[in-house]
């Protein structure tokens, strides 16, 4: 305890009291502190010190284990997040080519209609094609049922050819 007063006590007291008072106060403090030095407190027991050191070592070990576990959890968590996003990304952005028997609906829509901006004209065309197809279907049904007596094989072939032609025009746009 000898060097505990790193500050200049006299100077410090003189900031608040006159020089004579300050000197007296410093002397009082020094004498009282001398009494404290002459009456030391008991020392801690060696066993206590050993126990404290053992407790500290145990706590440090527990802290290390806890830290290690935390790092593992963090890494595992980060890996799970990355895996999740990778899986989702694969499903969203990578598509397999269609297999046998799968219908690719988009390809059924004629390119010309798909890319056209003139919706009214396209609707009109569709209506005409639809009406023609319906008319031909009716005629085919009539022929097949035998209601039309004037029918012949050549007429059916003719109608079928016409149907194919209309279909071809439709898909060409």
């Amino acid at each position, binding site marked *: *305890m000898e060097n*505990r007063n*790193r*500050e200049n006590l006299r100077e*410090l*007291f003189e*900031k*608040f009291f006159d020089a004579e008072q300050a000197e007296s*106060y410093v002397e*009082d*403090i020094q*004498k*009282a*502190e001398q*009494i*404290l030095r002459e*009456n*030391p*407190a*008991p*020392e*801690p*027991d060696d066993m*206590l*010190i050993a*126990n*404290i*050191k053992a*407790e*500290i*070592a145990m*706590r*440090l070990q527990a*802290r*290390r284990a806890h830290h290690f576990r935390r790092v593992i959890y963090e890494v595992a968590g980060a890996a799970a997040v990355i895996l999740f996003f990778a899986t989702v990304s694969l499903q969203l952005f990578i598509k397999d080519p269609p297999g046998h028997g799968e219908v690719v609906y988009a390809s059924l829509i004629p390119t010309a209609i798909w890319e056209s901006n003139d919706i009214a004209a396209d609707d009109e065309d569709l209506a005409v094609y639809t009406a023609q197809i319906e008319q031909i279907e009716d005629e085919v049904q009539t022929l097949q049922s035998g209601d039309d007596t004037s029918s012949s094989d050549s007429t059916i072939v003719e109608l079928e050819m016409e149907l194919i032609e209309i279909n071809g025009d439709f898909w060409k746009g």
Partner: protein
Amino acid sequence: MAKSNDLARIITGCKGGDAKCFSQIVDMYASRCYGYFYRLTGNNDISDELLSELFVKLVEKIGSYKGGSFESWLFKVASNIFHDHLRSKQRRKKLLEVQITEFEFGTIEPKQSDGELTDKLQIQLGRLDEDTRELVMLRFYSQLSFKEIAEKRSEPIGTTLAKTHRALKKLREFMEG
């Protein structure tokens, strides 16, 4: 300078979780911290507990030490532990409605846990009020400057100086009387 470099090295080791460095800190400060607790409580068993608590807390809190006087920092932690002890004691007192060990208010002679009478200084310290006794002990054991003590107590340095002077003068009179 070499000593402060050594201390800095030890503290760095403590921050890195080195048990040997903590052992060195215990060896360096256990005696003074124990004296501080003992003079405040007058009880060996409580001082043992508080000292253990201090160093265990040190393991948890060493990361929050950001430089400056390590002793000041350590004794601030010690002081907080002592105040926590006082508060828990007050709570116990209220709950049990029993009289607190009157030694801390200086009305009866304190006894050590082994039954021996404590030294004369301890008895006379018991005649000081709690706050004054802590001020004197903090000054004596912690090596805190008056400026640091004043900051810790949130009071002007002149007040701290006057209180310390008054307390030490009174203690001296008790001892000589």
